[in-house]
C-alpha cells in the first residue's frame, strides 16, 4: 500500500527481490506450461503436478545423498524417472476417465497427490533437506550480488520453456499434438496412434514439472510438501494466462513472478496474495484469461 518509491529502496534489495521473483516466475512458467499441455491433450487438470515437482527435487536429492550422482546428471535423470512414473499413472489410471467430466480428472489427480505427498512425508518427514548448490559463488554486479546458480536457473528455465514452445509450435510432433488437442478422433483416423501421443504428452508434462523440481532443489529445501502451495499458485497463474497459448503461459509465468518480487519490495505482506488479486482483476476484466480465447 501507499506509494512505492523505488528510489528509496536500496538497489541491492530491489534487484535481489526481482531476481527471486524471476526465479519463482521461472517455476510458474515451467509448471503452467506442463499443466496447459496436459490439459489440452488429456482434458485433465493435473493436480498431481505439485507432487511431481516435489518428486523431481526428491529424486535429485536421493541420487546425490544415496548414490553420489551429481546435480547435472540428476537434471537429466530425474525428469526421465518421474516422467516414466507419470506414464505408468496415465496408462493405469488416468486413461480410464477421459470420457468423464473434467471434474473427475481433477479429483483423481488430487487423490494421487494426497497419496504421493503423504507417502513421502511418512517416509522422510516434512522438514526440508538442503541440497548443495552445484555452482557456488557469484558475481558482484555493482548494483547487486548475483549468485551464479540463481542466474543459471533463470536462463535454464527460459531455454527449457522456449525449447518446449519450439517443439510444440514448429515441429511435426508438435503439429500432431496441436491437431490432436483440437480433434483427436480425426487425427487418429489419419493413422496416428493418439493414445500413445497422449501418454507421451503426459510423460513430457510431468517431466517438465520434475525438471523444475530439480532446478528448485538447491534454492529451496527439498521437502515432501514443497509442491503443495506451489500448485495452487500455479492454478491461479493458469487462470490468469488462459490455457490456450504456450507463449502465453511462459510470459504469464515469468511476468507474475516479477510482479510478486516487486510486491515483496513495495509491500511485503501482500506478496503472498498479489497473484490471487491479479486473478480476481483478470476475471473481472477478461474472464477467459490474458491469452485465452473466448470459448
Amino acid at each position, binding site marked *: 500500500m501507499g506509494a512505492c518509491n523505488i528510489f528509496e529502496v536500496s538497489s541491492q534489495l530491489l534487484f535481489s527481490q526481482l531476481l527471486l521473483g524471476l526465479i519463482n516466475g521461472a517455476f510458474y512458467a515451467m509448471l503452467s506450461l506442463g499443466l496447459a499441455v496436459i490439459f489440452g491433450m488429456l482434458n485433465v*487438470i493435473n493436480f498431481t503436478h505439485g507432487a511431481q515437482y516435489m518428486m523431481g527435487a526428491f529424486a535429485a536429492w536421493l541420487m546425490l545423498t544415496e548414490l553420489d550422482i551429481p546435480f547435472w546428471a540428476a537434471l537429466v535423470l530425474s525428469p526421465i524417472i518421474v516422467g516414466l512414473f507419470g506414464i505408468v499413472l496415465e496408462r493405469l*489410471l488416468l486413461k*480410464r*476417465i477421459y470420457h*468423464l*467430466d*473434467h*471434474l*473427475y*480428472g*481433477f*479429483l*483423481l489427480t*488430487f*487423490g*494421487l*497427490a*494426497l*497419496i*504421493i*505427498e*503423504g*507417502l513421502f*512425508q*511418512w517416509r522422510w518427514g516434512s522438514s526440508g533437506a538442503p541440497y548443495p548448490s552445484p555452482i557456488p559463488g557469484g558475481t558482484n554486479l555493482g548494483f547487486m550480488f548475483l549468485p551464479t546458480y540463481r542466474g543459471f536457473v533463470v536462463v535454464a528455465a527460459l531455454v527449457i520453456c522456449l525449447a518446449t514452445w519450439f517443439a510444440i509450435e514448429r515441429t511435426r510432433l508438435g503439429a500432431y499434438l496441436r491437431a490432436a488437442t483440437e480433434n483427436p478422433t480425426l487425427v487418429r483416423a489419419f493413422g496416428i496412434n493418439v493414445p500413445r501421443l497422449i501418454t507421451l504428452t503426459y510423460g513430457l508434462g510431468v517431466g517438465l514439472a520434475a525438471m523444475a523440481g530439480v532446478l528448485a532443489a538447491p534454492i529451496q529445501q527439498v521437502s515432501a510438501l514443497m509442491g*503443495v*502451495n506451489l500448485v*495452487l*499458485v500455479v*492454478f*491461479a497463474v*493458469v*487462470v490468469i494466462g488462459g490455457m490456450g497459448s504456450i507463449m502465453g503461459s511462459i510470459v504469464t509465468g515469468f511476468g507474475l513472478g516479477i510482479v510478486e518480487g516487486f510486491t515483496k519490495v513495495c509491500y511485503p*505482506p501482500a506478496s*503472498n*496474495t498479489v497473484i*490471487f*488479486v491479479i*486473478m*480476481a482483476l483478470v*476475471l*473481472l476484466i477478461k*474472464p477467459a484469461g490474458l491469452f485465452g480465447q473466448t470459448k
Partner: protein
Amino acid sequence: MSNRVLIGIAVAVVALAAPWMFYPVFLMKALCFALFACAFNLLLGYVGLMSFGHAMFFGMAGYFFGHTVKVWDWPMELGLLAGVLGAAAIGLVTGALAIRRQGIYFAMITLAFAQMIYFLCVQMPFTGGEDGLQGIPRKPLLGFIPTEDDYTMYYIVLAIFLFGYGAIYRFIHSPFGQVLKAIRDNEQRAVSLGYEADRYKLLAFVLSAALAGLAGATKAMVVHFATLTDVSAAVSGEVVLMALIGGLGTIIGPVIGAFVVIAMQDYLAFVGQLVLVIQGFIFVIIVLAARRGIVGELTALWKARRKVG
C-alpha cells in the same frame, strides 16, 4: 410408506440417543461437517458447480464467531450470525468472480481464492496466525440455555444441523431450486426462457457459503477453537471427499460421507499422516470404480435387485 415412517422414527431415536452411545464431541464435529458437506453438495449436486475452496467459508466463519464471542464478548447466537453473514459476504465477492468461468476453471478459481484467504489468515493478527483463536468461551445460549455440558450442546448442534438441512431441503424443492436444476441441465435453454442464470448461480453460491459458515461457526463453538486448518485446502478437499463418498447429488449422501470421514480421522488417528494417504486412495477408488458414492451405489444395487426379484 409405513416403511419410510419406521425408518424416520428409527433415525430420530438414534439421533436423540446417540450421545449416550458415542463420544458427544465426535458426534457434534461430525454433524458440523455433515452440514458443511450438505452446503457444498447443494452447489455441486444442484447447480453443477464444484467449489474446491469451501474451507474459506467454513474456516473464516469460525474466526468470525471466535473473534466476536471472545474478543468483543458478543452473545453466542450473535456470534453464529456473524459467522453466517461473514461467510455469505465472502461468498458474494468470490462467487461473483468465480461464476464468470465454468467447469474445471470454477474449481481452480475457488481453490485459488481459498488459498488467498488462507494466506491472509496466516498474516492477519485477528486470527492468531499459526496458534489460531483458542479458548472461545461457551456462554448460555439466548441467555438461559446452558452450553457448558456436552450433552446439552449436542442437542443444540443437532438442532442447528436440522435447521440447515431443512433449509437446504426447502431450497431444493422451492421454485427457485427448480430453476437452478433447469440451469444445471441446460443453461442455454434456461437463459432463453428469460432466467438470469448468473444471478441464480450467485444466490445459490452465497447460500451455500452461508450454510458452510453456519457449520464452521458451530464447530468453533463446540471445540472452543478456531484454527488455520479449517481454512486450508486440505479441508476444502475433505468436504469434496465427504460428498463424493456419500454420493454427489443425493441429499443424504454428504451426511453419511461426513460421518465416514470424521470417523476415519478419529479411529485412524494412530496412523498419523497416513490418514491423508488413505483419503487419497479413497478418492482414486471412488473416481475409478464407484462414482455414485455409497448412497448412489446402494440405490442402484437395490433397484437392480428389485428388477431381478
